């Protein structure tokens, strides 16, 4: 097949930009991650006006602009699969060896689903509505991966 573009003598500059960053999680995010790390508790916030419990938590309800930062709710470590997909390609930035399952999990007591890894289950056995529970990491990284994954409740 003929090449569409003649690239002879065309110089390509290979570069790399270092863009280090920090992210200030804020007090609400900090409270969530600290509770997860230190007490294996998953926290959400409730908007009384909208009658919704949000997880991950946020300082402000984006629907009604109410200040939610004091409205903490402790959620169960259990919930149900809302939906899922399978990550099949491999790349450096991925948290697991592929294939692995990413699922939207609505924790008991929450109105919004949380994205996390679903494991200890065969892909063909997963169904929306399936009951699951959190498995916490043995070592903390002070990130959302302090929940290592969710697994089906036997």
């Amino acid at each position, binding site marked *: 097949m003929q090449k569409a573009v003649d690239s002879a003598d065309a110089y390509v500059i290979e570069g790399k*930009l270092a863009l*280090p960053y920090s992210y*200030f999680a804020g*007090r609400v995010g900090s409270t969530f991650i600290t509770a997860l790390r230190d007490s294996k508790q998953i926290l959400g916030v409730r908007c009384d006006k909208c009658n919704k419990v949000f997880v991950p938590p*946020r*300082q402000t309800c984006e629907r009604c*602009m109410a200040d939610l930062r004091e409205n903490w709710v402790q959620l169960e470590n259990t919930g149900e699969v809302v939906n899922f997909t399978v990550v099949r390609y491999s790349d450096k930035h991925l948290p697991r060896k592929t294939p692995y399952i990413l699922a939207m999990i609505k924790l008991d007591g929450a109105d919004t689903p949380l994205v996390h890894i679903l494991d200890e289950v065969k892909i063909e056995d997963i169904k929306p509505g399936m009951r699951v529970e959190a498995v916490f990491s043995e070592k903390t990284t002070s990130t959302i991966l302090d929940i290592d994954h969710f697994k089906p409740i036997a």
Partner: protein
Amino acid sequence: MGYKKKNRHVGIVGVGETKFSSHREDVNQAEMIHEAVRQALDDANLTMDDVDCVVHGNMELFEMIHQPDLWHTLGSGAYGKDAFRLTTGGTTGGTLACAGDNLAASGMYDVVMAIGFEKLQEGHTTGGITNMADPLWARKLQSGALTDSAAVKLIEEFGAERARRAAMTYRIIMDKHACLNPNSHRAFGLDWDQMDDLMENSPPLIGDLRLIHMCSQSDGACVVIYASEEKAKQITDTPVWVRDHITVHREETLDLCNNYYPTDTTHRFAAEKLYERNGITNPLEYFDVFEMYDPSAWWGTDWLKEFFLLEDDDHLKLVENKEIMIDGKMPINPSGGVIAANPIGATALVRVAEAAKQIRGNAGPHQIQKPVNHALASAFGGTMWTVLTMLEKELNW
């Protein structure tokens, strides 16, 4: 196609500014923005339901997040509303002000909220800004946002001693203003007896540009709410009218193939056009305050000449005679300006917000005591990009 008059008048009806700081670990980006949003809504006595459109802006790459306007919905109030994101570099805040005005003037929206933010401590500013330069010609050579071009120019024109003294006088005046403004990031309490020491001993950055001359890297957010004339009059007794704005840019200053200093700066070009079409023959007499985007004391000093269309050494005399102080003939940056706080995506919008507060007469401790009827605000960005905004107390032009 030339400039056409606006479809309808637009007024500023609310402003909000966070305290500017070198770091805000206590809030995430959306939460910080929310502080300014809440302030602006309270200032205008509005709720988010009254806002038709949200325009959001910051610098690309500076916080290393993609689609920041979407992230920030948690604090910006943009949920379910028409929304835009703008990113025009250093001028972002100035472009946000243009967009707020244009969107409300167009008739598409009656009330538009413009949000500028930056959390410079979360990213690597110089890393981000280096992307501006061409990888083949300039990226390996670029010195980030730092340059001593204005120092070279002033020293060539007026000699090192006079130029250095003028730039440091400008710097100390800005610090004196910053000390009045409770939102300042940097306010050192500099005084005249420190002049010689600072000129000698402030750490050098590039050429004659020293650390003390240069703006800070700040975290903060600013919000300005724009409304159509009819709405503005319903919302507040003290709308500040946006008379006109102009944007001018040229990009060749970083292109090493054609590296000549522009014969006319974008500042002068913008100022000439803006004054001409608004019938202003003597801007120094006309305006009561100028909030300038002055990234360094050298630039601030040099640019006075361009913005006020001055000749010879008139701009130096303004500085040397301290006429640019808050109680002087032509107050520049009663807020302390960009050297006092530079949360880049917000910075130029802060100039507009501060100019509007001066006209309303409620700027706080840095309020100019004389009446302020006509205000000018500028924005600057790389490579040479100018936005000028004119604000008025009365709707009578």
